[in-house]
């Protein structure tokens, strides 16, 4: 028995959006028991709705939080000032929005996309390397946040993962013990996750020593590798996912 044609698309949309009354809702639930085509139509609609919700997740927030709203009483005497502020806010929000190029968790999405293009042995952990060759704190903070999220998710799902943050050039400044503001965050992550390794390029360290005459003090347990280039090529041969930040 097939009553699939009895329900219009409008009704099925209303069903998944919980807009039907009790009797209509019960009627569809009842039909779902024997009507596979109806089940498929509802699944397709729900899948589409889920995709839209996924694409505009709740993590999508204003790039620039604007000042708290002013009261209406203040408005009268400060109309011109408010107008100027609004213009400035508009300009600033445009500027900050352009600065905020990476949407949240885009790094993980990118890493996963790269992963899919590689041959993965399911018994081995997923190994991903983030290469930092600049000293932009904002980008490094995003990297730390997303690395934490990645490690937490894999730990939560009991999936093996190995992450290496490799620094060279100006990127070494970000893991200098005495200067880096991100040091505490990085140390906290390393203490929490043993599968996170931070490494620095030996060539860069030699160059800095030659220029300044001083040894660079890095965070404790930072691994010093022969050179960043060598490390990247070796890891890529071993099947690591490589992302340059």
């Amino acid at each position, binding site marked *: 028995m097939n009553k699939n044609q009895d329900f219009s*698309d*409008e009704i099925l*949309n*209303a069903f998944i*959006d919980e*807009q039907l009354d009790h009797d209509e809702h019960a009627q569809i639930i009842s039909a779902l028991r024997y009507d596979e085509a109806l089940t498929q139509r509802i699944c*397709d*609609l729900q*899948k*589409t*709705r889920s*995709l*839209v*919700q*996924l*694409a*505009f997740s*709740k993590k*999508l*927030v*204003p*790039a*620039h*939080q*604007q000042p*708290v*709203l*002013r*009261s*209406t009483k203040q*408005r009268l005497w400060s109309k011109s000032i408010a107008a100027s502020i*609004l213009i400035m*806010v*508009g300009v600033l*929000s*445009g500027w900050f*929005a*352009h600065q*905020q190029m990476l*949407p949240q968790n885009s790094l993980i*999405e*990118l890493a996963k*996309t*790269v992963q*899919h*293009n590689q041959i993965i042995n399911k018994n081995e952990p997923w190994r991903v390397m983030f290469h930092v060759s600049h000293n932009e704190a904002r980008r490094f903070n995003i990297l730390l946040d997303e690395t934490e999220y990645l490690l937490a998710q894999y730990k939560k799902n009991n999936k093996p993962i190995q992450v290496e943050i490799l620094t060279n050039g100006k990127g070494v400044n970000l893991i200098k013990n005495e200067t880096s503001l991100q040091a505490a965050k990085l140390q906290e992550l390393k203490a929490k996750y043993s599968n996170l390794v931070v490494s620095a390029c030996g060539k860069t360290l030699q160059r800095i020593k030659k220029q300044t005459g001083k040894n660079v003090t890095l965070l404790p347990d930072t691994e010093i590798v022969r050179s960043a280039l060598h490390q990247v090529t070796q890891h890529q041969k071993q099947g690591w996912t490589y992302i340059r930040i």
Partner: protein
Amino acid sequence: MLLFVYNAPMNPISLFCKSREFKEQLELLRPRLYRLAFSWTQDHAMSDDLTQEALVKALKNSRQLRDSKKLDSWTFGILHNCYRDSFRKQKPLDNIDDFDFADEHQPDTDYEHNSITLAVRKAVHSLPGNQREIVTLVDLESFSYADVAQILDIPIGTVMSRLCRARKALTHKLLHYSDKMEKTVALRRIK
């Protein structure tokens, strides 16, 4: 001479609109308004501006709010009006970044093409405006059909039919996208 000054009692909604709670509740709506504006415009800066404009107008016209429980739908209605106004003022422009060039097979563009998120956003953006507004109000903000009808000032039957057309178009576009992806993967494997 005796003067009688009559102070009319303020109704609860007027008091609410003047309260700090009202302003706080408006501010709490900011991320939701921004998300919806972004789903309509796909532009971060424009979404920020629309959100701010809607909040300022809500504060300015707070007396028009009849029921404090309807604050959400009332504010989203203002956002919709702001969006429509900006849309009327703007001349249609084609963003150069939206064009596909033949030799654009770079890692970053390949990533964009592979990303489901961006594919869905593109599919939503390609819908006619009146369908896009409805599908996002229902899917992202979980507004009832009656609320959407009120926000957009259209009959509830129109909401249902446009939503139906929007979801049908999205399903068609996204299924096509999935098929294309599967074919690409298969070709790579053969190589």
